[in-house]
């Protein structure tokens, strides 16, 4: 669409099948910047992944319509670009030029923070996106920040000694479930009141954190979770890994962890119990043919789940190499949307951070998720009546109880256990 004053609207592309909206991350170009075709305009945060938005045309970015952190629907305009041609063809009338300049200034000022504003915001841990600017062009002045701080302090007297009973009642209200939902949403709008003191740190929720929160909430509120755990003797696996890991690292340049061994066992079991590889669709259950395993890769701030496609067609070595690539991409923030899409089942090595038992939340809209817990050396009963020290590991499975029941999952996880316990020093990993 042409907009005669400011140029062509750049719309949010249809990034993927199920995607109806995306959160605009960082703007890499600002109004007034000249952009080449395909140059990156901004980051788009979708389903747990950042993609870069290339410019569909060459020209001057005249206005940003969707600010950082805001959500845009697919097809909605996110910015305006005035093409190099249109500027030459239609000379802008002086009056228009003036308003245009004003608009541009105004857009600029909103995110132009003075040293005073920045230092105040830092000292008081204020998210400036929440502060209303009242100065020229909507700029946030030092006074605006001070007023914002004062407002937050004003609501504090609720926590003063006179009103202690209320203060105690408030957090209780907050955990009242379902039926109190209306008052709860209202309350949530102003958590500032009595929830924190001046010493508390207020961490603004990043777009990716928000995304994770939404997905987790959707999963636990829509999917009736059931859970079971099994203990497997992985001594053979450990011995096998010890035997091959150094030559593997030398040969492939990739560290061999226990994950691909477990993954292989899980995928083999899925092959036999395909219901685990399905999704709930109200009237139907869709059983997926391809086995694409999502692997949870965590950092201190977030977790992403890149996908190993057709995991059933890959050897232990193949899985190890592909995982290493995906983890490296995840750590460097280089995952693309296609790396993230299409998972049908999720594996999470929670043992890597020392857990021996976890209750995972299903990666929506999949049917199940399995975790590998820490491998622990402990005495176990073997050969009916003797005790030996073996390497034992727990595996935890969360399942969508609409699709799956205890019986089939019991069989599935037993099968995983059998595959795991079959490993020995002679197993071929290629």
């Amino acid at each position, binding site marked *: 669409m042409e907009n005669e004053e400011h140029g062509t609207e750049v719309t949010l592309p249809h990034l993927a099948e199920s995607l109806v909206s995306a959160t605009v991350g960082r703007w890499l170009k600002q109004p007034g910047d000249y952009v080449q075709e395909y140059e990156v305009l901004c980051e788009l945060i979708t389903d747990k992944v950042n993609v870069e938005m290339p410019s569909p045309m060459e020209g001057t970015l005249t206005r940003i319509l969707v600010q950082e952190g805001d959500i845009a629907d697919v097809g909605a305009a996110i910015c305006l670009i005035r093409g190099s041609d249109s500027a030459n063809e239609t000379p802008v009338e002086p009056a228009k030029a003036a308003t245009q300049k004003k608009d541009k200034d105004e857009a600029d000022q909103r995110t132009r923070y*003075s*040293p*005073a504003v920045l*230092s105040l915001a830092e000292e008081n841990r204020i998210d400036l996106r929440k502060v209303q600017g009242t*100065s020229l062009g909507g*700029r946030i*002045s*030092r006074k605006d920040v001070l007023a914002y701080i004062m407002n937050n302090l004003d609501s504090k007297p609720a926590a003063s000694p006179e009103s202690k009973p209320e203060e105690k009642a408030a957090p209780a209200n907050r955990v009242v479930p379902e039926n109190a939902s209306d008052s709860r949403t209202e309350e949530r709008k102003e958590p500032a009141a009595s929830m924190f003191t001046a010493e508390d740190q207020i961490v603004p929720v990043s777009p990716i954190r928000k995304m994770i929160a939404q997905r987790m909430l959707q999963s636990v509120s829509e999917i009736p979770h059931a859970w079971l755990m099994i203990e497997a003797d992985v001594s053979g696996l450990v011995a096998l890994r010890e035997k091959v890991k150094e030559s593997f690292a030398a040969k492939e340049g990739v560290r061999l962890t226990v994950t691909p061994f477990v993954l292989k066992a899980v995928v083999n079991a899925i092959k036999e119990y395909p219901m685990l590889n399905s999704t709930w669709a109200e009237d139907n259950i869709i059983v997926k043919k391809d086995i694409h395993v999502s692997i949870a890769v965590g950092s201190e701030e977030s977790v992403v789940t890149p996908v190993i496609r057709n995991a059933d067609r890959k050897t232990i070595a193949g899985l190890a190499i592909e995982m290493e690539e995906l983890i490296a991409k995840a750590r460097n923030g280089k995952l693309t949307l296609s790396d993230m899409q299409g998972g049908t089942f999720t594996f999470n090595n929670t043992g890597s951070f020392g857990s021996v038992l976890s209750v995972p939340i299903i990666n929506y809209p999949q049917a199940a998720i399995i975790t590998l817990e820490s491998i622990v050396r402990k005495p176990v009963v073997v050969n009916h009546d003797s005790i030996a020290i073996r390497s034992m590991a727990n595996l935890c499975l969360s399942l969508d109880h609409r699709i799956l029941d205890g019986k089939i999952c019991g069989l599935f996880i037993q099968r995983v256990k059998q595959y795991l316990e079959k490993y020995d020093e002679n197993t071929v990993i290629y």
Partner: protein
Amino acid sequence: MSMLKTGVAYKMAIMTYLEAIRSAMSEEMERDENVFVLGEDVGKGGVMNATKGMRDRFGERRVLDTPLAESAIVGVAIGAAMVGKKPIAEIQFADFIFPAANQIISEAAKIRYRSNNDWQCPIVIRAPYGATGGGGLYHSQCPEAVFFGTPGLKIVAPSSAYDAKGLLKAALRDGDPVLFFEHKKCYLYVSDEVPDEDYTVPIGKAAVKREGDDITVISYGMTVHHVLKAAEEVQKEGISAHVLDLRTLQPLDVPAILEAAAKTGKVMIVHEDNKTGGVGAEVAAIISEHKLYELDVPIMRLCAPDVPAVGMAPTLEKFYLPNADKVRDAMRLLAEM
């Protein structure tokens, strides 16, 4: 001005800026017989009437007429100071101070330093400066920037009668050369309460003339009054201005400047001297050096444009000189930014 000090109420009299200067000189001459005044036509009272009646009171040897030679006026003063006198050298108009610039900058300002503290030069050079209207090029200039930044020299520029008297007394009791810039427009335009008792205003101390929390305006001399008038006007619009009168230009009261700047984060400096290289440039630099992270908007300067001097034509004069209207408009802009 209320002068309550340790419970004692001082007697006050309203007097003009000019009278305050005259009374400071007279009182100091009475107090210390080494004090004397020299300059062109000072005997018959001087063209500004600053020394009016003083020859009758102190005699022609202490109210000394000189030839039209500014270099000699200051030179004689320096020599007298070195043998123990406390001379007040009057330059008829600050516009004519330049022939004495060599004496002031190369001699007076350096004597203590180059003699390794063996000699000192306690002179006061009174220089009536600034535009009164209709003065044209040679009776309106603000030459403070020429001397500003000369180590060894103290420079004061009071805006009120109280400060004029207190600072002149402090200058006369100071052991170093003091360049005393008295704004000619202030002479009769400005009157305020001055204590009957002996007092001084310390050199190097600025004064908060008005408390405010939206914008900070720093000024000195006549423009302080434009600033205060404009501050009254914008107050009605809800803009609260904090006004600092520098009073002493050298040494600048750095803590007071920084405190005033940090108070609002929005700073404007107003002076009648030209913008480039003026006192405001140094004040802005000091604030930038120490308080950048407390600034909310760029520092603003409202000064005379970089034009050689005040034009004779009323239109040019109006264009050139800062006034309350110009200050008010700039204050609004600063508050809105």
